[in-house]
């Protein structure tokens, strides 16, 4: 690594790294692109585990008591373990690594025009910690007593006392894995923020930064500002479990509600932490495929700041009926409903971007538009749950479940597919197959709605969450509701089968796809000005930026795009 001082010149610098051995190139890389892909692949493997868990417990719900093919019998303890770890994996080990760490790593240096992260080795370390955390989580499924089954919120005393949870080491390894994961993203986050603050290409002003980078950075800052109390809480919970302190145990003077506050003070900003990167990715895609300038760049940016700021004062809406002071609920209702204001503005801006555009429905665009459509449903149903009195009926019901899957599924899965299909040519230098991409899109989007729309109605019928078998609740054990459950499960199986199309397309295109040009989508941002895939060191010469990232269809120009680093024409 340590090259002589001659490396000041960037072109020679890039060539120094060509002779890296396989070990240093792919196993212990310092190149941000490889680390980004490590995150993405790890996240996708974890997504397969999370999806498998979802399959197992949905099958149990639809056909209670029967052997689930490819899994076996799902008992009550196992059911709890499956739902808990499905939630944990999908949020902490899929959404976070793929959207923030993965695409953040891949895109930030490319989009702001520099050769790597500011601290490449810190970057590698954060991935390694992340990998360890994933392994610890997987290990927790196999210890005596099984994996942790106290819901991903892990409310004590259930999570802190082994006699209550019956998963002595499962619970401890779970909290350990989560804490390690936080440490990993704290380190990664510091790197991201520093890189985008300090290492921007010459000429790139604050308002020339692509929205995707902006939003990832805002998300990382939100994460860093909210996770601290929960890290402290995780230490306290771990000591409750292993040493026998009573931080969260009322009989010893502690308070179980304190954990809920610590958790949701992090947990609510966390929603925006994973939401913002996807919103940024969608902004990139809709501008490219409608050949339009983003409507109101500043407005979009400020609404993101407003959302981030507001997200710190809404956390107690998860606890309206958890025994908190009922007067506080009014305050938190107001702040929660207020969040609709910046987000509505942002959605309006995105839709206004399409106005007068020249929309081409390529696969990434389909994903981006479907994100907007699905997220609209997720967003508006959030209003119900922000209203404290509605929460009296909906708390912990399938309505909540359907709502947050309508936000998290678009964010995580749709956002991931949008980004993967859009940047695939840049990552691997080959194009993905459009037809298969579209088949996969419709095969995912339609079943997704078929899974979660019916669950809203189950929620209206009063069905509560995390129940392995509804036969103990006669009002819920009716044939009509059971049919809805079966319908949702069948849709899930259909959706999972269609993922095979994607996996096939992904790997076949990676090796056999059509060669991708530098700029297949005619986009403006800096990553498209260099070869696909980019070499180590990215840019031959550090680019100079002359304009904002969304100058599409500028009147008076022949080409309908105008790369950020293209010098203005002399008149």
């Amino acid at each position, binding site marked *: 690594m340590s090259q002589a001082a001659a490396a000041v010149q960037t072109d020679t610098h890039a060539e120094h790294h060509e002779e890296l051995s396989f070990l240093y190139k792919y196993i212990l890389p310092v190149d941000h692109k490889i680390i980004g892909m490590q995150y993405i692949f790890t996240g996708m493997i974890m997504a397969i585990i999370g999806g498998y868990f979802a399959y197992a417990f949905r099958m149990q719900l639809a056909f209670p008591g029967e052997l689930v093919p490819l899994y076996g019998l799902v008992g009550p303890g196992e059911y709890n373990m499956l739902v808990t770890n499905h939630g944990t994996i999908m949020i902490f080990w899929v959404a976070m690594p793929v959207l923030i760490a993965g695409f953040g790593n891949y895109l930030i240096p490319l989009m702001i025009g520099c050769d*790597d992260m500011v601290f490449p080795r810190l970057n590698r370390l954060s991935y390694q910690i992340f990998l360890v955390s994933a392994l610890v989580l997987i290990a927790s499924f196999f210890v005596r007593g099984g994996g942790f089954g106290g819901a991903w919120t892990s409310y004590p005393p259930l999570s802190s006392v082994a006699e209550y949870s019956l998963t002595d080491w499962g619970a401890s390894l779970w909290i350990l894995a989560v804490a390690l994961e936080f440490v990993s993203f704290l380190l990664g986050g510091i790197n991201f923020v*520093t890189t985008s603050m300090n290492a921007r290409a010459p000429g790139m002003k604050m308002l020339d930064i692509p929205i995707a980078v902006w939003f990832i950075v805002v998300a990382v800052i939100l994460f860093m500002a909210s996770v601290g*109390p929960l890290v402290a809480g995780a230490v*306290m919970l771990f000591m409750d479990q292993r040493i026998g302190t009573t931080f969260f145990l009322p009989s010893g003077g502690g308070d179980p509600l304190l954990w809920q506050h610590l958790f949701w003070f992090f947990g609510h900003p966390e929603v925006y932490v994973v939401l913002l990167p996807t919103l940024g990715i969608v902004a990139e895609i809709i501008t490219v495929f409608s050949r339009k300038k983003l409507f109101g760049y500043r407005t979009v940016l400020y609404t993101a700041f407003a959302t981030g700021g507001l997200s710190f004062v809404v956390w107690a809406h998860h606890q309206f009926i958890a025994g908190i002071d009922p007067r506080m609920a009014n305050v938190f209702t107001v702040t929660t409903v207020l969040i609709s204001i910046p987000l509505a503005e942002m959605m309006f801006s995105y839709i206004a971007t399409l106005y007068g555009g020249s929309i081409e429905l390529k696969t990434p665009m389909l994903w981006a538009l479907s994100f907007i459509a699905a997220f609209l449903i997720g967003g508006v149903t959030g209003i119900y749950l922000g209203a404290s009195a509605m929460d009296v009926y909906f708390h912990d019901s399938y309505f909540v479940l359907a709502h947050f899957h309508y936000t998290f599924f678009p964010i995580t899965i749709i956002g991931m597919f949008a980004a993967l299909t859009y940047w695939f040519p840049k990552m691997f230098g080959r194009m993905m197959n459009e037809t298969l991409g579209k088949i996969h899109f419709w095969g995912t989007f339609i079943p997704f709605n078929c899974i979660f729309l019916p669950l809203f109605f189950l929620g209206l019928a009063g069905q509560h969450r995390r129940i392995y078998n509804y036969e103990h609740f006669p009002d819920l054990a009716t044939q009509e509701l059971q049919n809805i459950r079966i319908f949702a499960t069948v849709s899930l199986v259909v959706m999972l089968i269609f993922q095979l199309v994607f996996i096939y397309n992904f790997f076949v295109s990676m090796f056999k796809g059509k060669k991708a040009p530098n700029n297949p989508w005619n986009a403006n941002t800096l990553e498209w000005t260099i070869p696909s895939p980019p070499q180590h*060191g990215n840019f031959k010469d550090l680019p100079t930026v002359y304009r904002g990232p969304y100058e599409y269809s500028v009147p008076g120009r022949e080409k309908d795009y105008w790369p950020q680093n293209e010098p203005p024409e002399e008149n």
Partner: protein
Amino acid sequence: MSMHGPIATHRSATGVPSGRLAIWWLLASEIFIFGGLVTCFVLFKLNGTPGFEDASLTSTAAGAINTFVLLTSSLSIVLAHAAIEKGDRVKSFRYIWYTIGGGVVFLGIKTYEYTGKIIHGHVITENLFWSFYYTMTGLHALHVIGGMVIMALISFDIRKGHNYQRVELIGIYWHFVDLVWIFLFPLLYIANF
């Protein structure tokens, strides 16, 4: 200073060098970790949770000596930074090792305190106050140990003549550890009402 690693490391659009900027972000997130613990402690204390009167059992003298030790080590690390800016590697090396020595004395006194408390039956599970006492000071001590290890590594680095800027970075971190102690000291040792 030698030039290696990516160019990105050496760019500075904000005017603050990347290393220092990163340390500040690190400290901002550390504020939340310690702040979260301290907030919980204050919540329970103001609530009059039984057991918090045990704050009078902590040894103010030991706490005060530890404060003195940490303040002095803070001084020596900042002097190390001042020395390295003048290019005086030997002096800087010596000051860094004074600081590490301060850390050792601090941990020694901490150990003595812990031992005394445990002998008197004030173990971590006795009540919430002692739980917080051991958790907060323990987490702080882990930061002290981490700082000392990194400092030792850096000291050999600068003796060989590279990475001078790291003295300032570890210094900022060490001052932060000192700052945390400045707040833990009144919380755990003085405010026993």
